[in-house]
């Protein structure tokens, strides 16, 4: 063993954001007056002092090589006094103070990075994505690839602001769903109880795995005289919580896992407040490298939404107004018994009135 090096300081905490703020941000901090959309992908923020900050938004791939990040830095050095920002949806925001530099900047973003400018206002934002096969230990499908394939199909709605409202899209590659709630979400769906690898049952702490099951379907068992676990199959709802705790509880299945699409999630407190997304359709094949069936279904929803929604209506609000019956009609998805909730608050989702659309 090499001799012990001195340990670096611990508990540095959160980097000092003040050092990173663009000078115009620092100068007008908390003193902004209004903003205006200049063109798709570019907002102008006007401060009380009269200063104008142009924020140019470009969709990144989130997973980037250091060389790509350096190219981003080169552009920010040239046009943004060496400052830039990332958004919660992995967009880049270039901070420009001179209006005439916006177009040259956009050209460099297009030419040198291959990134597109957009994602502001009533457009689809960059898709929130998880780790997938690139780097998670739990996924049944990929994330970065699925996002790339889908953005290829949807990108016209990223670079233009022509939707009734914002549309946020997310993906999740296992049923833990670490991707976000969204107006449209594409999530993996498991279809049978975990298959237990009894030979590998040694590293896990059994009581923890038993305790994690939300429906108490896991219990200790003996197999060939060895301690192991078993799953009560009728109780199990294939949620995969146990798999996250213990790799020997294999929930994934390359042959049977499918994808489901959820709609109507919203975080903002605007109008009716935040809402969760609901099941729109399911059973789409997990079909790499381009998942065309998923893109088709998402397009179908977007087209119906564009057609039918009023201005300012998010997808969930549009559906609430026209009703789910009509949603299934206009999208062509079939409503089945699997759309009816069976979990904890199922009854609160039933229609307990005579209010029906006939």
């Amino acid at each position, binding site marked *: 063993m090499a001799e012990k090096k001195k*340990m670096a300081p611990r508990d540095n905490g959160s980097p000092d954001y003040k050092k990173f703020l663009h000078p115009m941000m620092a100068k007008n901090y908390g003193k902004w007056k209004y903003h205006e959309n200049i063109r798709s992908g570019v907002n102008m923020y006007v401060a009380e002092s009269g200063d104008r900050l142009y924020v140019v938004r470009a969709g990144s791939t989130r997973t980037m090589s250091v060389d790509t990040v350096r190219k981003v830095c080169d552009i920010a050095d040239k046009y943004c006094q060496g400052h830039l920002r990332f958004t919660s949806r992995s967009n880049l925001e270039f901070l420009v103070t001179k209006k005439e530099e916006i177009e040259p900047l956009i050209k460099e973003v297009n030419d040198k990075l291959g990134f597109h400018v957009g994602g502001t206002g009533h457009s689809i934002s960059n898709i929130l994505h998880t780790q997938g096969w690139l780097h998670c230990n739990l996924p049944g499908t990929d994330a970065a*690839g699925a996002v790339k394939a889908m953005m290829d199909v949807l990108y016209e709605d990223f670079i233009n602001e022509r939707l009734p409202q914002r549309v946020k899209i997310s993906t999740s590659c296992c049923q833990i769903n670490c991707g976000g709630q969204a107006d449209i979400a594409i999530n993996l769906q498991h279809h049978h109880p975990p298959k237990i690898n009894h030979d590998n049952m040694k590293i896990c702490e059994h009581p923890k795995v038993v305790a994690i099951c939300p429906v108490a379907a896991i219990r200790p068992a003996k197999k060939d005289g060895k301690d192991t676990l078993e799953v009560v199959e009728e109780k199990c709802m294939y949620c995969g919580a146990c798999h996250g705790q213990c790799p020997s509880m294999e929930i994934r299945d390359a042959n049977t896992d499918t994808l489901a699409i959820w709609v109507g999630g919203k975080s903002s407190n605007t109008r009716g407040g935040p809402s969760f997304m609901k099941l729109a359709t399911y059973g789409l094949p997990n079909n790499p490298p381009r998942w065309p069936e998923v893109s088709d279904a998402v397009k179908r929803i977007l087209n119906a939404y564009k057609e039918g929604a009023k201005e300012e209506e998010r997808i969930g609000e549009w559906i609430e107004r026209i009703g789910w019956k009509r949603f299934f009609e206009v999208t062509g998805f079939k409503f089945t018994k699997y759309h009816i909730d069976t979990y904890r608050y199922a009854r609160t989702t039933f229609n307990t009135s005579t209010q029906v659309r006939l």
Partner: protein
Amino acid sequence: MSKKEESKTPMLDELEDGPWPSFVTDLKNLAKKKPAIGQLLGQLEQSYEERWDHWLGTVINTPGYGGGIIARYSDIGNKFPDIAQFHTIRVIEPAGWVYSTDALRQLCDISEKYSAGILQFHGMTGDILMLGSNNEKTLEAAEELMEKGWDIGGSGNGMRTLACCIGPAYCEMACFDTLKTTKFLTDTFISQLHRPEFPYKFKFKLSGCPNDCACSIQRSDMPIIGTWRDEIQVNQKEVKKFIDEKGEEYVVDNVITRCPTKCITLKNKKIEIDDKNCVKCMHCINVMHKALAPGKDRGVTILLGGKRTLKIGDTMSSVIVPFMKLDTDEDYEKLIDLVRRIWEFWTEHGMDHERVGEFIDRVGLGTFLDGIGLEPDPQMVRHPRTNPYIKFEELAPPKIGGEPKAAPNVVDKEIEGREMVVEMKK
């Protein structure tokens, strides 16, 4: 024995076409100087072919810390030896995700020196992810990051890296300083971030106004969201301009009728707001943002208990503090005190792997409020309960059901001014 086998990746190659930028192309270029990336793409191609993942996960720790590194081992490491160990370091991001290029270049250099040279901006939690180093290099990279003033962390059963919206840095809607508060909470509770000691993870997310651009209600245990308690600021001149420009009908259709509490009226090209009934939803301000602005007496609403799907299904956070100021040092002290009380009660009584929202579900919000010493408030619920199965502590005859358990009293409650819901006779 340099078997520099060039990985064949026909399926991934298909992801190089199309208008959207391709991570595959980017990684292929990186592979020219980082052979490990070639193998990473090889493994990914195999995953695409088999629809099967090849990572095993565990944890490794750097001295003094109980989190911050996500360890990944390839289960086909014999085929792809350069990525047999391919760990991720979680680096705490600057509040608001604003960077100087110097800082980014520093991250690039450290990433290239010790890892495979992949960065992700950002992880689902909001942190910077540096991918692809082995056991040894991971620890070296962590040391260099900390040497340069960065910090790592946020995994396991502890506080996670915070995330916040851009707030006062360029958004006119911001009702409190999200960046300052994010840094303040991170630094104040840095030990809880580095040395996991809770039943399960705990996330804060901060949004400067109820638009909640940080998606905090759905994605964090404790959302802190800016708001105001006086009147919406109305600039009638701009209102008139807006109406002249867009037409009265537009304003009725897109503003007046969209107000959730119908508290806006339009008369003679003037807007009147019944602010007592405004629920601060932001809609009218968003649409007429030159004419309307949040009020001047600003503060935050604090919620608790949100999480994503695992186990009980998604839950949203719910209100525990309808309004508090967050300006002075004393205000911040109060916030710290509240967080500490929540953590103490939850850590003492929570079960393993129980998020604070699940814990509240189990013990009841009433008991929880008792436990942390907060007064119940009608704004905490949509409406009072609709069933009669109530256990009035004050009326339960102590001897019959055995001694009643004293309400868990982890903190000194402020009894002063407390209104009893049930007046005890005699």
